[in-house]
């Protein structure tokens, strides 16, 4: 695959769809959670309003260069992740810029935003930001481990690192999905998925009651708006990766919407019914439960 200019509008279109889908879907999920609790919940367009409101703030402060750049890193990370991963299998225009790199690129690019965010939060000078970063990073080391193993298992299984090819290999029926061909890897990966979606029981990073509210404590206005945007698209991007790797990918936008939504619901459901882990508890949890599954996954491929 090589670059052609037509890919730019295609990519922007994909981005646009995913952004809106993300904004709406996260609101819907929140609404669902509220309904479970018997509340009416937020309007589904609440995310848009919040976004506009934050862009519309009149006064802003600036803690320094990295503080300023932090949200830029964050959102670039999210957008980049979307654009480096093919969204719809078989679609000529939703392949984005996946010619630039394979699965490895996607896996490592996840850290781009994290790093920038952590730096920005660090420069705000707020101790809670630093504590949040410390917790987040500490947790992610073990949370990502089962995922890495699952990916490796998968790559061995399919003998490729290209996401498109992995999806291609899963076509032709439900039982061709990795979910069924390599269930251990999927289980392992789901540990990581739940662990990195910033939901209970793994949301000690933000811990609003304790270190309000972790890394973004000092962020507001357009900074926050960028981060909110990212908050809408980044989980989707991540879910897309999981979907592509383990659940047969999506051949059209409808399949995409359903699969992403269902996947997204997993951590949401778990989050609603679980209290929060402390960092060391979640580290132990992943080592005790996620890691063995991951090891089995790479040994049994």
């Amino acid at each position, binding site marked *: 695959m090589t670059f052609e200019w037509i890919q730019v509008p295609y990519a922007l279109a994909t981005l646009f769809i995913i952004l809106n889908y993300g904004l709406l879907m996260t609101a819907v999920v929140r609404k669902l959670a509220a309904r479970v609790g018997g509340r*009416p919940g937020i309007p589904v367009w609440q995310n848009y309003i919040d976004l*506009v409101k934050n862009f519309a703030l009149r006064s802003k402060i600036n803690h320094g260069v990295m503080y300023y750049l932090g949200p830029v890193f964050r959102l670039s990370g999210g957008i980049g992740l979307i654009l480096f991963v093919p969204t719809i299998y078989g679609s000529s225009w939703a392949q984005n810029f996946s010619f630039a790199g394979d699965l490895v690129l996607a896996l490592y690019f996840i850290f781009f935003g994290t790093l920038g965010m952590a730096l920005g939060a660090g420069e705000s000078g707020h101790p809670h930001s630093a504590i949040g970063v410390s917790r987040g990073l500490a947790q992610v080391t073990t949370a990502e481990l089962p995922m890495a193993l699952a990916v490796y298992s998968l790559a061995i299984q399919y003998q490729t690192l290209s996401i498109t090819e992995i999806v291609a290999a899963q076509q032709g029926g439900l039982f061709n999905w990795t979910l069924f061909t390599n269930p251990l890897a999927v289980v392992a990966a789901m540990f990581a998925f739940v662990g990195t979606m910033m939901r209970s029981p793994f949301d000690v990073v933000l811990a609003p009651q304790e270190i309000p509210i972790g890394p*973004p404590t000092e962020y507001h206005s357009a900074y926050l708006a960028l981060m909110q945007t990212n908050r809408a698209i980044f989980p989707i991007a991540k879910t897309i990766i999981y979907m592509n790797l383990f659940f047969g990918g999506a051949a059209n936008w409808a399949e995409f919407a359903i699969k992403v939504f269902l996947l997204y619901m997993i951590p949401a459901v778990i989050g609603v019914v679980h209290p929060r882990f402390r960092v060391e508890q979640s580290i132990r949890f992943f080592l005790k439960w996620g890691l063995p599954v991951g090891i089995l996954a790479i040994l049994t491929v």
Partner: protein
Amino acid sequence: MKDVDDKFLKNLDRTVPLREELRPRKVTTPDGQEIEIEPLKDYFCEAAPKVHAKSYFPIVEDFYNWARANSLWILGFGTGCGAIEMRPLMTPRFDAYRYGIQWRPTPRQSNLLMISGYLSVKTLKRAIRAYEQMQGPKYVVGLGSCTINGGMYWDSYNTIKRLDQYLPVDLYIAGCMPRPEALLAGFMELKKLIKAGKCEGANKYAENFATYKANQKSVIKDWDMPDYNW
């Protein structure tokens, strides 16, 4: 009219010395030089608040105001007993979320400061700081009679009586305490005001900064912070 008891004021006539950590001091640099540190100047931004103009296009401003009105982020700062009346707003019975109202843990991301009840002098200081650290446009709602006229604390020696002398209040919700329903009604009122473009408390505060500051300092004797807390 004085907000605070005369006897209390008399006792506070003496100037309160600056806290140790804020006093200018000499520090030795790693190279062995002595440098002067003036914490209040060096650690804090001294700029005064600015009046921010509305958007150039009224229609845009109206759109913004609509968004602001439908995305009220409350700083969860429980100053008095009114705080207890806020909690039911999150429950299925009242559920303020459906109106786009949320609670945020940090002043930076909030636009609505709820003064939920009486303010002692000590708490006032914190309330001012929290208010100033919010980003405009920002709104203040006084909850209950204590914020209006001191309420049952009208003759207390160290609670303030009228909130709007110290902060630009956009809306008072009367009652002692007002019930959650009253709160919801108040929010609806506030929304209307915002949509109407009448909630320019932040600009008002900036314009009358000197007055507000003088009022604040007249009761808060140990004003150990910069004039405006960014």
